[in-house]
């Protein structure tokens, strides 16, 4: 019996949306896989970088927005620098992360997005990152209290983590920037 392979029809609407959003010519990709070859995080990904690009071309939106890959991308830009088609794959990952956040996609492991939220709320509040406060907020939200405890104590002892935050004078300008960023999304 001949098994009929499932035929995948590419969807151009998601491709168009992603190309506009990321500013990247994703449709050019011919799967040379140099991005994946140079990716330091490929060992921890559910889709390799070249597969992310292919999924964008095929309209695999749901798979990508719930993927582990987009959050474990280290943003090192090795993929971008080596792409023969001038596609910045990490910028595509950023656009996917932004969309996943907007669409409130539920993830199995939300440690990375929660870290980003904690980091940005520190900036919104003080204009600069208050590391001790940001870490405490992150640990509370993720219940990872014991992780890196020894290291944290050592950093306090070395006074690498400050007890008090540094707040800039014009923190209202930062708040306005955040307001505009929220308006946009």
């Amino acid at each position: 019996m001949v098994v009929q392979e499932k035929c995948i029809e590419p969807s151009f609407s998601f491709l168009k949306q992603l190309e506009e959003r990321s500013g990247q010519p994703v449709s050019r990709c011919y799967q040379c896989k140099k991005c994946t070859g140079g990716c330091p995080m490929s060992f921890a990904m559910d889709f390799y970088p070249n597969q992310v690009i292919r999924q964008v071309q095929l309209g695999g939106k749901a798979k990508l927005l719930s993927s582990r890959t987009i959050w474990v991308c280290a943003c090192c830009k090795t993929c971008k620098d080596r792409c023969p088609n001038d596609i910045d794959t990490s910028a595509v990952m950023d656009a996917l992360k932004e969309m996943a956040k907007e669409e409130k996609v539920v993830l199995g492991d939300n440690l990375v997005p929660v870290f980003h939220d904690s980091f940005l709320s520190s900036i919104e509040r003080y204009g600069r990152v208050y590391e001790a406060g940001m870490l405490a907020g992150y640990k509370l939200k993720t219940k990872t209290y014991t992780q890196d405890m020894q290291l944290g104590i050592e950093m306090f002892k070395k006074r690498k983590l400050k007890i008090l935050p540094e707040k800039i004078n014009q923190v209202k300008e930062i708040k306005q920037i955040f307001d505009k960023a929220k308006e946009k999304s």
Partner: protein
Amino acid sequence: MKFTYYPGCSLHSTAEEYNASSEAVFRKIGIETEELSDWNCCGATSAHSTNDYLAHALPLRNLVLAEKQGNDVLVPCAACYNLLKSADHHMRSGADDCEKLNKDMQEIMGANYQGNIQVKHVVDIFSEPAMMGKISELISQPLTGLKVAPYYGCLLTRPADVVAYEDNPEQPMKLDKLVDGIGADCIRWSYKTDCCGGSLSISQPDLVLQLTRKIVEAAQYAGADAIVTACPLCQTNLDSRQPKFGGGEGSTIPIFFITELIGLAIGAEGSSNWLKKHLVDPVPLLRSLNLSVAS
């Protein structure tokens, strides 16, 4: 030579020794700096990962402030450098949203960005021939016998068309030249631009450990007794994810900032205070080579 100095958040906390050693070296070699008034965080990975607007607007506020203050901006942090430079590049590119960004800055700050200044990294400035000459004249203690692997990481080299000041971003050489210039033994190795995973260090430590371990082991395999970097995230990540703090097997090696090594070689003040901040103590290694540390 006068610059507007942008330290960034890390240099006021986890990497204070990078701040102190940069300032000590600036003083010693005659680079005049004035801190950027009321600077804010560049937004780092968290901004560009989750919000395109913040990714440009947060560094842009600093560029607007810097342009008002005058002089080019000098940045020691590789991440801040990368993001300020990316925002500068974006504004010069004439992309669709540039006008809107500048209009917003005008509304919020009463000024916008004209692109009359440049963003420079300390390694770029130190490795200029005239500056290398000056450093060379000031050397009081060549770092003879110190085998160092120069580690560039990602943010100083990529994306090359935006941030790199190297002839070949896949084989950067400016840290190598500085290490050679101060009499240390510069190790050749193939991991100098590999990523250490710094941006995931807190949220995914187990994954990051696999990257830092490889980099430290590769440096040791190549014969290095220490690594030198120009990025506070790489330094903290490599320094803290070693066996001493549960970072797997193997021995530990110190991770220096380039300004610390230059400072040691030219006898800049305060080096013992910088080195005290390290998690992996570099002093025993320096002592074994009869290199003295200034108080």
